[in-house]
């Protein structure tokens, strides 16, 4: 039976893993290659790297990090952040990424999702959707949650699927960094609306939140950062907890 995936997420800037609260106030969490190695040994099913480097000068740093990780960690690696054109997708894949996550650029230029998936296959194109509740629906935000787009998150998810996204990384901006759990209603609404896998993200504070994301949110994978980085929980511990709660995992 297909296992639900646990994906530690590494936010990387200036060659270091950091973690912020609601996308601000960054805290240093360590060396990306070292952390990737540790998560791999603990049984992470995949790893996601988000390059949150603000200046384009430091962009190439992430390529070297991915090259180093890919040379010794043999599980799927997803990389996102600053992907603007098909050439960026190519560079990340060449460095050793298996999937590339597109966020703001998918909104600015939806054709990029189609061009990239036509060229490299849907299996390597993840569309990241940052969403916030606005009135009675969820809206898509870009630029790390600072910019409203006016797009409805569910409609946007369907559009991204139709353009060739192989997977959606769904982050609740309301919950990110709060440790109060995923926005389950949002996760479930999107998971039910599309046929492609959904990664739930934003808000994990304890292991029950991971269980809820799968059981209530119907997520195919759960992504978390701070609960793993600061040693509160191990990836292996999280998997055992999920298994005890009746979720199929890879142990």
């Amino acid at each position, binding site marked *: 039976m297909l*296992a639900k995936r646990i994906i530690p997420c590494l936010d990387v800037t200036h060659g270091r893993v950091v973690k912020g609260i609601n996308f601000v106030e960054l805290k240093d969490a360590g060396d990306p290659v070292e952390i990737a190695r540790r998560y791999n040994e603990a049984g992470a099913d995949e790893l996601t790297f988000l390059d949150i480097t603000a200046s384009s000068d430091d962009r190439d740093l992430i390529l070297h990090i991915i090259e180093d990780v890919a040379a010794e960690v043999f599980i799927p690696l997803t990389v996102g952040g600053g992907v603007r054109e098909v050439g960026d997708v190519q560079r990340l*894949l060449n460095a050793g990424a298996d999937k590339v996550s597109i966020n703001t650029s998918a909104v600015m230029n939806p054709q990029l999702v189609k061009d990239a998936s036509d060229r490299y296959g849907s299996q390597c194109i993840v569309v990241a959707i940052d969403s916030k509740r606005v009135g009675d629906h969820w809206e898509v935000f870009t630029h790390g949650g600072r910019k409203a787009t006016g797009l409805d998150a569910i409609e946007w998810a369907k559009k991204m699927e139709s353009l060739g996204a192989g997977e959606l990384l769904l982050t609740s901006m309301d919950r990110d960094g709060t440790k109060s759990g995923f926005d389950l209603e949002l996760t479930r609404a999107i998971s039910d609306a599309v046929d*492609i896998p959904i990664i739930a993200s934003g808000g994990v504070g304890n292991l029950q939140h991971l269980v809820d994301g799968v059981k209530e949110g119907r997520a195919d994978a759960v992504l978390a950062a701070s609960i793993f980085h600061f040693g509160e929980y191990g990836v292996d511990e999280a998997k055992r907890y999920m298994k005890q709660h009746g979720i199929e995992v890879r142990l």
Partner: protein
Amino acid sequence: MSVDIAVIDYGMGNLRSVSKAIEHVAPAASVVATSDPAVIAAAGRVVFPGQGAAPDCMREIEARGLRQAIVDAARSKPFLGICMGMQVLFEHSEEGDTACLGILPGTVQRFPHEAMHDDQGNKLKVPHMGWNNVHQAAPHPLWVGIEEGARFYFVHSYFVQPTSPDVIAGFSHYPFPFTCAVASGNIFAVQFHPEKSQNDGLTLLGNFLTWNPGERDTACDMSGAACA
């Protein structure tokens, strides 16, 4: 320097991870990603990976004049197909109604929408993405050291249906059983990604690098034992 392992490069997807994983299990081997038929012909072993869509894969194979090199390698030396590199070994793919290489009899079909739910009625997503149990339908040198039911990493929307059940080396469930590994003579091919399947994946790649199909067949003939 002679090439031990040729990884066939036909412009479809990420070959780097395949090459890296092989280099990891065989640091002394020379591994070359190539689209040169002469290099493929001269290599001791051939790995045929691939991602993306079947029509694009076949078009790229033809555009690079690689069809004959692939057919010859699949007939003559240890040959490992991975993902799309497994699918196009068959005769026809439903994806884009594509005629494939026809090295193995059978077809490639999409996970049918109406079947994609579990026994509780929950929707199953396509692509089939993630770690699933691989059941070994028959013993094979490439399974050595890998537990029955071990999990491997998959990402695909289509699966092979071999005409002959004799070639089925492994199967998985999503939600019905489907063939995820085939073995025929010197060909072994898998739907999952050994290069992304951590320790068990590396074990399988290591087994491939020491596999000698000819010797195995001889041993079987001589002993008169039933060979899987």
